[in-house]
């Protein structure tokens, strides 16, 4: 175990030296990787911000559920206890049909309804959700729709649905982008490592004559790829930060026209970590494929 650590730390230092020995190439690779990764990372964070922005505009989303005409107080109580059991609800409120009618009358529609002796309105519950995840919104209303005694479920605004679809589409685009660019970066690292192997052909040969295993020879190249990933990931984060900074003002202006005060949030710790980890994984993968392919030939 200690020997293993020692060998890895040696390989790490060796990889650092090789990277430092060609600062221009290292910088170039980091820039290529960083810019390519900044696109999906920035897109993801932008989408997150849009979701927050939408929240600010829409207020808390509500679901109204209307009971069918046959619903008596026992039915209403049954539904109430079911609502109580739902973990994602922030609050709910029972609106009896009489109160609904009164509201309607007081809103100035009383004249229209004048002369009606039978109240046509159903009892209803108005439910607010804890989060504002559009998906949660959808699944919950779909579930409630199936409860006995519930005649109709209405989402308070159709645009929540539309936004959810849009954000979903955006996420898919970001994902596809990440996969495609990730693939490109694996190829880029693959080629960088291939060149490294060529320039170190003599060292590899000599090491083999001295009894080096393939594993020993591969190790520094893995670190090389991984470190390139670290640098690329950091460049990507930097690019996203700068991008957010540039966008902050125009976005705030747009938000203002909707009456919302919005500050763009940059990547948080988790997003930053994921971005760098993704870059490391790509570098490591490119190195692994390259080394396995080219060391067999030398």
């Amino acid at each position, binding site marked *: 175990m200690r020997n293993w650590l020692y060998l890895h730390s*040696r390989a790490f230092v060796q990889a650092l030296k090789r990277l430092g020995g060609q600062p221009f190439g290292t910088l170039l690779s980091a820039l290529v990787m960083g810019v390519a990764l900044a696109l999906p990372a920035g897109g993801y964070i932008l989408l997150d911000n849009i979701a927050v922005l939408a929240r600010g505009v829409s207020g808390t989303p509500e679901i109204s559920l209307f009971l069918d005409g046959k619903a008596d107080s026992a039915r209403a109580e049954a539904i109430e206890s079911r609502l109580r059991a739902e973990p994602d609800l922030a609050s709910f409120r029972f609106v009896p049909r009489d109160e609904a009618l009164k509201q309607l009358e007081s809103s100035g529609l009383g004249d229209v309804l004048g002369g009606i002796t039978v109240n046509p309105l159903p009892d209803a519950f108005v439910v607010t959700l804890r989060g504002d995840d559009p998906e949660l919104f959808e699944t919950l209303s779909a579930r409630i729709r199936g409860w006995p005694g519930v005649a109709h479920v209405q989402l308070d605004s159709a645009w929540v649905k539309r936004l959810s679809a849009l954000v979903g589409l955006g996420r898919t685009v970001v994902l596809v982008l990440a996969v495609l660019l990730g693939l490109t970066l694996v190829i880029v690292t693959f080629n960088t490592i291939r060149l490294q192997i060529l320039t170190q052909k*003599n060292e590899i040969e000599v090491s*083999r*004559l*001295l009894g080096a295993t393939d594993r020993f020879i591969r190790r520094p190249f893995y670190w090389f790829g991984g470190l390139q990933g670290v640098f690329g990931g950091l460049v990507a984060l930097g690019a996203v930060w700068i991008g957010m900074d540039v966008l902050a003002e125009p976005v705030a202006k747009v938000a203002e026209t909707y009456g919302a005060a919005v500050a763009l949030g940059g990547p948080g710790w988790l997003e930053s970590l994921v971005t760098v980890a993704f870059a490391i994984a790509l570098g490591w993968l490119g190195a692994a494929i390259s080394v396995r392919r080219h060391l067999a030939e030398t």
Partner: protein
Amino acid sequence: MIVFDKLVKQYPGGYTALDGVSLQIAPGELVVLSGHSGAGKSTLLKLIPAIERPTSGTVRIGEQDISRLPRRAVPYLRRNIGMVLQESRLLFDRSVYDNILLPLIINGHPPGDAARRVGAALDLVGLHGREKEFPAGLSGGEQQRAAIARAFVNRPSILIADEPTAHLDPAYAAEIAELFKSFNGAGVTVLVATHDVSLFRHWAPRRIALARGRLMEE
């Protein structure tokens, strides 16, 4: 004991470099391998650390059949065999010290012990005080001595050398011959391929001559 049995080596293209060589080398022997250029000396030496594999016949070291050794076992075989080639094959981008250290790192030696061994090897080949220099700053003879230190630092039980003095002045060459003799004196089996048999005449080694891939033991 190194045993070559009815060895045939045919290179791709059909050239037969070794044509039925059978030979036994006892532990601790000093063997000088001679023969004209193209006789098959290098080929014979390369079969021992499995750099080349025989077309037919076997090579055994002790109980181990080298000719059928799986690829993944080859590195461990080589750690017990010191190699000195015609070109020193030092790594020119690292110091003499780091060159000699390399086999110990490969072998997984603890750093402290490794440093002691490199120091001892430097003393032995007379390069003490030169370890921080780079190989390009050394003369041909010094480079070859550094290569010998590297071959011996792991204390292998077998040392093979392929024309180690070919590029050297006679005075340097004699020094190198002296080094091999001292290793042999410490119990190491030493095989040297050379044009210059006279270099070793004082040591009365076992002499083996190859001609066109066949053995002509003297």
